[in-house]
Every structure is written in structure tokens, then in C-alpha cells.
């Protein structure tokens, strides 16, 4: 009886904690989505130039993985589709939007732009695969400094065809580095399906190079966070480098308007979107309020930024 009660209490505590995590992740994910949609709007308005690769539909991997980190010391290397990672890392809405708009308030003064972000321990670059050696160097330095920091580097499924990644796997395993290779497998690289890009298996590749590897439903934010938390803790305690494959789907275009996929195919993923899925687990009103708050926040930032460049709606 006692045992049973204890169990029930545990389960309840677990559920409460899950709910509170879900709320946090929902807030972050809805903020990411709002920012991304705002960026697409700004592009249509002619207030943005260049590329904007949004992570619509993939918000769970950003929120889930990056919240598994110790943001004060861990390091994030991101790629061309890095806005979500950036916001999950530091919630700097203004710095990001301004950066993509090419304004001096941008986190890199507007010089970097969408693909080239840096703040504290966050670094992104638009060369696919290219950050893996850099991240490996970060991990080498942190290991040699005994800082306990973990480095996570994000790649898409398509980028996994770049040789630099396998050179990095080999180094990471040889030197038992504190590094996590996160693969956001959204099944497409630009216009090309994964079947035409990638042979074999991601998990097999990582394991064959001596990494531990796991795969998770990348649209289940709790599952992502649980998996990432366990892996990051293993890495931090010296168990060596790892890979985490996040199965997900890109709901938006590759960059601005380029999407030749069958609309039905996209539609079929709608219910599986991490934000929709999280919402079903939470109070709908709370979700709506949170969404409104995010919109208000982003709108305010956008208005300030538009004003600063001498334009308003």
C-alpha cells in the first residue's frame, strides 16, 4: 500500500513537472514560431533581404536539445536554419530580428545576417557541415581546460553528406570529446528528399565511428529534452561523444517561397507539428494567451526596429 501510494505520488510529481516543462517549452516554441513567421512576413514586405531559413515545424528540437544544456558554459554550433536554436539559447528576439533585417541593433551589427549569428557561446555559419570541425575544436579546448562544458553542433539530414562531419566524428571518438552531434532529420535538403541524399543509416554511421547514438521523435519536445538531457549528462561525465537524430519535418519552405512539395504531403504532417502536439497536452486557454503574449512581444520588437530604420506600418 505504502509503495503504491509513493508510486502514485511520484507519478503525480512527474506529471506536474512534465506539465511545467511542457509549458516552458511551449512558450519557447511559440516564440520561435512567431519570430519565424514574422521574418517571412518582413521578407514579403521587402524589409528583409538575403536568405531566411525558418524552422517552422522543427521548434521542438531547438527547445528540447538546447534546454538540456547548461547555458552558462555549454556551447552551441548552429547552421543555416539556426533562428530556433538561437532563441532557445538566449531568447534574444530583438538581436535576432534586427540582425536578419541588417540593422546595427542586430546581435552581429547586421553584418552576419540570418546564417551568421554569434552571442556568448552560440556560433552559426551557413556552410553546411563546416561547423563540425570548429565544434570539435571547441570540445577539444573545453576538455583540455577541464571546464565540464559540452558542445552541441546541429546539422540537417542533407548536410550529413559532407565529409567534414566524418573527419570530426573520428576525431571526437579518438579523443573522447565532450560533443553532441544533433541531426535534425526533416527528410529534405532544399528540394531533395533524404532518399536521394543519404545512404545507409545515421545511427549506424555514428556508431561505426565510435560514437554512441540515439534517435528520438523530434516533434515530441519532452522526449527530445529527456533524450538530450541524458546524453548531455553522459557526455559531461566523460562517457564520450554522441549523436542524437531528431526525426522531424519542415512545415515551411526551404527559405522564402521555394516549396515544390505536394501540399497534401505537408498537410499530412500538420497534426504532428510539435506546437500542435504540445498544445493538446496543455490548457488551450493558457496556450492561446501564451501565443498572444509572444505575438505582442515580437510585434513590439518589430515596431521598434521598423521605427529605428525610419519606417512604421
Amino acid at each position, binding site marked *: 500500500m505504502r509503495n503504491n501510494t509513493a508510486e502514485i505520488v511520484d507519478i503525480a510529481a512527474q506529471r506536474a513537472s512534465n506539465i511545467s516543462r511542457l509549458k516552458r517549452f511551449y512558450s519557447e516554441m511559440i516564440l520561435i514560431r512567431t519570430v519565424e513567421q514574422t521574418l517571412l512576413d518582413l521578407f514579403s514586405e521587402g524589409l528583409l533581404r538575403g536568405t531566411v531559413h525558418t524552422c517552422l515545424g522543427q521548434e521542438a528540437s531547438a527547445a528540447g536539445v538546447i534546454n538540456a544544456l547548461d547555458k552558462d558554459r555549454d556551447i552551441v554550433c548552429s547552421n543555416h536554419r539556426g533562428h530556433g536554436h538561437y532563441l532557445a539559447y538566449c531568447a534574444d528576439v530583438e538581436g535576432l530580428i534586427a540582425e536578419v533585417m541588417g540593422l546595427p541593433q542586430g546581435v552581429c551589427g547586421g*553584418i552576419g545576417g540570418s*546564417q551568421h549569428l554569434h552571442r556568448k557561446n552560440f556560433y552559426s555559419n*551557413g556552410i553546411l557541415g563546416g561547423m563540425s570541425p570548429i565544434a570539435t575544436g571547441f570540445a577539444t579546448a573545453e576538455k583540455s581546460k577541464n571546464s565540464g562544458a559540452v558542445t552541441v553542433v546541429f546539422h540537417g539530414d542533407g548536410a550529413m553528406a559532407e565529409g567534414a562531419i566524418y573527419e570530426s566524428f573520428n576525431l571526437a571518438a579518438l579523443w573522447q570529446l565532450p560533443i553532441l552531434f544533433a541531426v535534425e532529420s526533416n527528410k529534405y535538403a532544399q528540394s531533395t528528399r533524404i532518399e536521394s541524399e543519404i545512404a545507409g543509416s545515421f545511427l549506424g554511421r555514428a556508431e561505426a565511428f565510435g560514437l554512441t547514438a540515439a534517435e528520438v521523435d523530434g516533434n515530441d519536445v519532452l522526449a527530445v529534452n529527456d533524450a538530450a538531457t541524458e546524453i548531455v549528462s553522459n557526455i559531461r561525465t566523460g562517457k564520450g561523444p554522441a549523436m542524437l537524430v531528431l526525426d522531424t519535418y519542415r512545415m515551411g519552405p526551404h527559405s522564402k517561397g521555394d516549396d515544390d512539395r505536394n501540399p497534401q504531403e505537408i498537410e499530412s504532417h500538420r497534426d504532428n507539428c510539435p506546437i500542435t502536439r504540445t498544445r493538446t497536452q496543455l490548457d488551450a486557454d493558457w496556450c492561446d494567451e501564451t501565443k498572444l503574449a509572444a505575438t505582442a512581444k515580437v510585434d513590439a520588437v518589430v515596431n521598434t526596429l521598423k521605427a529605428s530604420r525610419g519606417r512604421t506600418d
Partner: protein
Amino acid sequence: MTTYLASLQTSLHNAFEADARVVLLGEDVLDPYGGAFKVSKGLSTDFPNRVMTTPISEGAITGVAAGMAMRGMKPVVEIMFGDFLTLCADQIVNHIAKFRGMFNDQVRVPCVIRTPMGGGRGYGATHSQSLEKMFLGTPEIRIVAPSHAHDPGEMLAKAVLQAEEPILFLENKLLYPMSLAESEGAINVEYWDKESGYPTAIVRNHSLTAADVTVVSYGGMSRVILPLLEELAEEEISVTAAFPGSLQPLPIDSLIMAASESGRVVIAEEGTEAFGWGSEVSALLGEHLYGKLEAPIVRLAAKSRVIPAAEAGEEDALVQATNIEDAIMGLLV
């Protein structure tokens, strides 16, 4: 009037029809996408087995193209952005450019590596460069760059169908949508070095035998030079502009001839200045026209720093029409 892009598209189509050994490979080159800049649009529909979409492995696919070329095919490999040629550098420099020579002339590597270069689109530091300088000077490869005053499709056909050597074929992002330039109004276009297949476009805003200033440039930079020449015509400043289609080897004689029309030379390029294309042109002209120039050669090029994503920053970093105008005026005072 056909555009730079349409000219390339049509040319590829014709090359595929003309020679069954021609194939194209690259990232996202299949229809309906047809490549990031749409150069292969329509091609895979008409020639489904000869257009191969590849994984994101720029180094390997460049090597694959070379290997196919060495085994009797005529491959065209598209590198989505010229910035990614860094990833192909080993295949280009230590393989493609070496085989013929180090195998004592017993092999040929007739592959074409096509890629768009240049800024002006807000893509930022890693997607806006003009990296041809990395390969200029590598023996045994030809580097070609159609300007606004060229027919790019003609040059591509020559490269794909007739060339025996490896060719780096540089397109320009901002030129794609533009209509091909023609002689019109004050502007007169003629072509030298036609027999090479990669002609030097000579654009004059005058019909004199001498000019006030000669501008030597290539590729995307031509986009701002042609309108500038029109403007200057109104001010009766006569300019001869030379845009070699072949960056390497350079049509030295033509450049000397064009420079001699004025004795005052402005060299403009989209890449950075030091150790660039213009360095060689300035060196050659300075050496060959020793004592015959009316003024020191002026070089214009991008600032020696990363290309910002922000519009104002990007404009400031890259050479603009006003910089060229100022340089021309500076030579005339």
C-alpha cells in the same frame, strides 16, 4: 530579348541534344526545382537520365565529374554557390588540374564546373564572395566568366561541347535576370578573340579610335559599367571597356590594345583587391605599356573584409558605379 539565365538554360538544352555524352550533376538540379538559380530548369524533364541530383558533397561531386570526364563523358557539375568551391579545392587543384600534366599528356579532363559568384543579394559573408582568385593562376585549368555583354550560352556551349581542358565557368547571380546587352544608343559592343570561343567584349560609348579612359573588368561588374558608359556618353566622356570572357588565360594582346586606346586604365573587379584578378592585369599592362601610359593604373575592388549581409554594408564593401565614375573622372583631371 533573352536573359543571361535563359541563354544558359537554352545552351544546356542544346548541348544535351547535340551530344549524348553530356550530363549534368549538382545539388537540387532536378525539376521542378531546376537548381538554386534555375539554370538547369527543364533539363531533367527532357533528359531524365542525364541530370543527376547529388548529395551535399561539393568535393566529391567535383571529383565525380572529373572521373566521368576521364572516362569519355562530358560532365557539367553545378556548385550551388561559388563560395563552396573551397570544398572542391583539392579536387580541382590536386586532381583535375594535375592529371593531364603529371600523366604526361596521356589523359584529358574535359569537365565544366559551373557556379554563380558575387554579392548584392544580402546573403552575407559565406554566400556572396567572388572566390575565383583562389583558382586563378592554377596551371592547366581555364577560367571563364561571361559578362553582361557576352552571350553566356555560347560560351557554355563551347566549354561543354568542344573544350578539352577543365573549365571553371563563373556565372553571376545578379546578371541572371538581366537581358543580354546589345549595341544600342551610345553603346557599341564588339567582340575580339572570337576564335577562342570565349571572346573579349569591347564596349564603347563612342565611335572614336581613341578614348579618354579604358575600363578593364569582367563578369558581374559589367552590370554597373554598361549603364555608366551610357551616362558618361552624355557628358562626352569616351570610355572603352574590355570584358574578357576568359579570365585565365588572359587575352593579353586584346587588353593591351584596349588599354592603348586611351593610355588611362581603370581596372574594376567584384572581388577584393590584393592578389586579385586585377593585380595580374595591372602588372601585365604596367609591364607591357611601360612608358606609354598617360597615368598610373587605378584598381577598384571590394574592401578587404567580409561582405556584410546588411544592404548598406554590402554596398559599401563592393565596388559601385560611383566608385568607377570617380576613378574615371580622377584620371581626367
